[in-house]
C-alpha cells in the first residue's frame, strides 16, 4: 500500500495496523448496536469513527482522516451526545410500537444492505488502486471539489442548509405554542 512505499516501512507493519484498526472499528460498531443505553452507543460510535480515521491515515489520506475526526467525532457526535444526555432516554418503546419499528427497521435495513451491495460491487475492481497523491493532499481534493465536482458539492451544501433551516423552523413553532 501507499504508505509503506512512501516511508519505506515493512508491509507486515501496515497489515498489522490495519487489522488492529479494523477490529476496533467493527468491535465498536457491534458494541454500539448491542448496548442498551443510547449514550454509551454514541460513545462507541465515536470510537468507530476514530478507527476509521486511522484507516484513512493508513491509506495515505491524512487530510480525510483529520476531517473525519474534526467533523464526525469532534462536532456531529458531540451534538448527538449532547441531545442524548439531555433527554436521558431510559424507557424503551411501548410493545405495540415495538412491532411496527421492528418491521420498519428490518425493511429499511434490507434497503440499505441492497444499496451498499450495489455501491460496493461497482468499485470492487478498483480496490487495489487506492492512495494516489490526489487523495492525500488537501490541494488536490479542493481542486477536485471546486472544478469537476462543483455541482454535487454545492447541491449537497444546499441540502444541508435546507435541513438546518427546517430544524430551526420546527423548533421555533413549538416555542410559540
Amino acid at each position, binding site marked *: 500500500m501507499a504508505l509503506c512505499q512512501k516511508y519505506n516501512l515493512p508491509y507486515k507493519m501496515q497489515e498489522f495496523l490495519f487489522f488492529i484498526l479494523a477490529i476496533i472499528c467493527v468491535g465498536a460498531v457491534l458494541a454500539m448496536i448491542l448496548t442498551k443505553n443510547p*449514550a454509551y452507543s454514541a*460513545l462507541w460510535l*465515536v470510537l468507530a469513527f476514530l478507527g476509521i*480515521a486511522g484507516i484513512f491515515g493508513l491509506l495515505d489520506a*491524512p*487530510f480525510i482522516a*483529520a*476531517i473525519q*475526526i*474534526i467533523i464526525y*467525532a*469532534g*462536532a456531529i457526535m*458531540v*451534538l448527538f*451526545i*449532547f441531545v442524548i*444526555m*439531555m433527554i436521558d432516554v431510559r424507557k424503551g418503546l411501548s410493545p405495540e410500537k415495538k412491532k411496527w419499528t421492528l418491521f420498519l427497521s428490518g425493511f429499511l435495513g434490507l434497503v440499505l444492505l441492497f444499496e451498499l451491495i450495489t455501491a460496493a460491487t461497482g468499485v470492487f475492481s478498483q480496490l487495489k488502486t487506492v492512495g494516489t497523491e490526489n487523495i*492525500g*493532499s*488537501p490541494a488536490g481534493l479542493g481542486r477536485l471539489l471546486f472544478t469537476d465536482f462543483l455541482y454535487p458539492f454545492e447541491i449537497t451544501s444546499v441540502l444541508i442548509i435546507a435541513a438546518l433551516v427546517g430544524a430551526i423552523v420546527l423548533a421555533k413553532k413549538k416555542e410559540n405554542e
Partner: protein
Amino acid sequence: MTEIIIVLVKIIFAMMWFLVLTLYLTWAERKESAVMQDRVGANRANIMGVRILGLFQPLADAIKMFFKEDFTPPFSKRFLHNLAPFISFFFSLVTVATIPFGDVLRIGGKTIRLQILDLNIAILFVFAMLSLTIYGVVISGWASNSRWTLLGGLRGAAQLISYEVALGLSLIGLVMVFPTLKFSAFVEYQGGLLFGWLPKWGIFLQPLGFLIFFIAAMAESERVPFDLPEGESEIVGFFTEYGGLKWGLYMFTDFMKLLLISCLLTTFFFGGYHLPWLYADGFHFPWGGTWLLPHGIVVLFQVLAFNLKVFFFCWMQILIRWTYPRFRYDQLMDFGWKLLIPLSLFNIIATAVILKILG
C-alpha cells in the same frame, strides 16, 4: 536505529518542556495575579529554608494532589468518570508534537528538525485533537451523574464547539497568505521581509485574523472571560465531582491549553522561531551591516526567540484572565456567533480581494 533514538529524545524533550512549563504556569498565574492585586502571592514553599520566590510551590501542590484521596462518587458511572480527565489531558498533550521549536540542527553530519512531527496537515491535526478534548468535558459532566455537572458539561461543549468554528475560519485567511498547512512551512514563509525591513510575520499580514484567533483560542482554553464551563466560584462546573489528582488533571489541561495557544500564536502570527533579520548564517540588518554567527549559536537564538514569544503570550493571557469579568452565557454565544464568525468570514473575503488585487 539512531533515527528512532533521535525521535525518542525529541519526544522526551518536548514533553518535558511542555509539562514543566505548564507546571510553572500555575506559579506564574499566582504571582502575576498577586502583583496585580498588590499582594505577595505564593512564596512559602521551601526546601531546607530556601525559597526562591516560591518557585517550589508547584511541586508542593503536586505532592499534595498525589496524596489526596482518589474518591469516585458511588452514584457515578465509574469507568467513564475515571476515563474523562485522561481524555482531556491526553489529547491536549499530543498537540505538542507539531510545534516547531527551531529550524534544523546539524550535528555530526545529521540534520535534526527541532520538531517531533512535521505533518502535512498540522493545523487540522491540532484542531482534530482539540475537538476531541471536548469529550473529556462532556463525559465528565454526564458520568458524574449529577444534573449540575451535566449542565456544566453541556455548557462547556456548546462553548467549545461554537468557538471552534471561529477558530478554524480565522486561520483560513492565513492559509491563503501562506499557502500551506505545514507548521514548518508557515514559519519559513514568515522568515522573509516586507518592504525590505519589516519581518513578514503573520500579524502584519493578518491583523484581524490574529485578533479573532486569539479571542477564539482563549475561549477554547476555558479561562476567565470564557470560564462558563467551569465557573470555579459561583456556577457549578463539569468537574465538581472530581477530587485529588483527577481534578488536578483538568486544571493542568487548562494551563496546557494556555501554553498550546501561546505556541500556536507564536507559530502562526509571530514568526515562530524567527528573530527579525536573523538568517541561517547570522544577522543581516536592513540598514546594512552583518553579524555572522556559528550554526549552534543561531539555533540557540532561534529556540530562545521561540520561548520568549511563548512566555510573552502566556503572560498576556494571564493578564487578560485577571483583568476581565466573566461573560454572561447569552453574551458569550452572541459574541461567538454574531461577531467573531461574521468577522472571520469578512476577513477571508477581504484577504481574497487583496490577494487578487496584488496579483
